């Protein structure tokens, strides 16, 4: 199985005891959130997805709320055809069979039409593009090489992937990005993802939220969510 996972509680201590009884976290006004990254970014490549393992993984966690990067319109219309197989063939059917509630956190207003597939072709041009592609291949290799979620979750593999994603952002010129560019759309999109998770955490305080998104958004989401005092960012195993 190959998907990236959140692996740290940024700036927060681990939860004390099980979260099953909402009382403890509610009185503290905290909502436990874990972020899991799929390899949707690398979907055009022949990645051997193990969807059964993904289903078992999420079923075992049994979150109250499952945030997916899809639009409200897609959800309402049940228009799942363009979604990644992790969503379409694994997580949405799982939610239908369980008490897990799906919450679409995708950006309805996203005008650039950026999808996980588009992301593979976005990025810088020229020499930077060459380096960008090498880094991206390195991230893909690292994540594919993990034998389990736990393997992805530990040690140098995680830190290296995080560093590479930061470098890829830098090479893409994220800080000086022009509005309307494809990558600007990606940045706006990941900000929207974070905002919607925080809004959900405020609206349903204390419930266990699992966010499953493209791996390329994970490092940003972890940082963004960790900045909100009402969110308790946890490892998926602690959710």
């Amino acid at each position, binding site marked *: 199985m190959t998907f990236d996972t959140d692996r740290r509680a940024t700036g927060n201590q681990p939860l004390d005891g099980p979260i099953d009884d909402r009382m403890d976290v509610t009185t503290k006004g905290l909502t436990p959130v874990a972020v899991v990254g799929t390899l949707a970014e690398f979907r055009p490549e022949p990645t051997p997805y193990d969807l059964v393992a993904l289903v078992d993984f999420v079923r075992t966690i049994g979150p109250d709320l499952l945030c997916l990067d899809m639009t409200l319109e897609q959800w309402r219309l049940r228009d799942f055809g363009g979604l990644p197989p992790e969503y379409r063939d694994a997580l949405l059917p799982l939610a239908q069979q369980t008490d897990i*509630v799906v919450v679409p956190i995708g950006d309805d207003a996203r005008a650039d039409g950026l999808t996980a597939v588009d992301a593979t072709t976005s990025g810088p041009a020229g020499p930077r593009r060459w380096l960008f592609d090498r880094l991206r291949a390195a991230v893909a290799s690292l994540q594919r090489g993990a034998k389990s979620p736990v393997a992805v979750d530990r040690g140098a593999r995680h830190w290296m992937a995080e560093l590479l994603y930061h470098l890829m952002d830098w090479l893409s010129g994220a800080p000086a990005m022009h509005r309307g560019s494809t990558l600007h759309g990606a940045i706006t999109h990941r900000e929207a993802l974070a905002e919607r998770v925080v809004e959900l955490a405020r609206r*349903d305080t204390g419930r*266990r939220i699992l966010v499953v998104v493209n791996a390329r958004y994970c490092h940003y989401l972890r940082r963004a969510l960790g900045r909100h005092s009402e969110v308790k960012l946890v490892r998926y195993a602690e959710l």
Partner: protein
Amino acid sequence: MTGTAGAAAEVASLLPTVGVVAVLLDDATMDPDAAAALVSATNGLGVLAVLDHIDLPTVVPLLKAGVIGCLPADSPTSDLVRALVAVGRGEIALPPSIAARALAELARPVGLDRRATNELSEREHDVIHLLVRGQTNKDMAQALFLSVRTVEAHLRSIYAKLGVRSRTEAVLWAVRQSPDEGGRE
């Protein structure tokens, strides 16, 4: 026959097994719960309450408790006899001055409780609207993008505010509150 008794069961035990069709209660402070217990214990006999003061707040709860006749304590004997005969037949016996208003109050749907409606939060209104449409807790949670446990918590709160004990009672309350609810999409 006449006598004094404390609990409803005691009253019932004093009654002969045959030949009794009505029970007259002379209790100035008749409590609706006690009246309901008595109605239940006397197994369908007509119960007539004699009260010091006859007014809607006193009479309506007693009628809801199953008492079918109320009479002021200073009523003439002839009125008392007529009332006893009436309740013995299962008819409602009320002073004309209050009968129409009391029956109108009884005829009102139970759910027309604006105070309870106002006590419901906006989210609880959303939940009960979905409840009336026959949705499961998961359906409601998914529709509102809330966890199932949160919906369950809202339901418990709704039950408490409406004074109902079950999903069915809550639905009945909502349908009475707004008859169109049942058919709304």
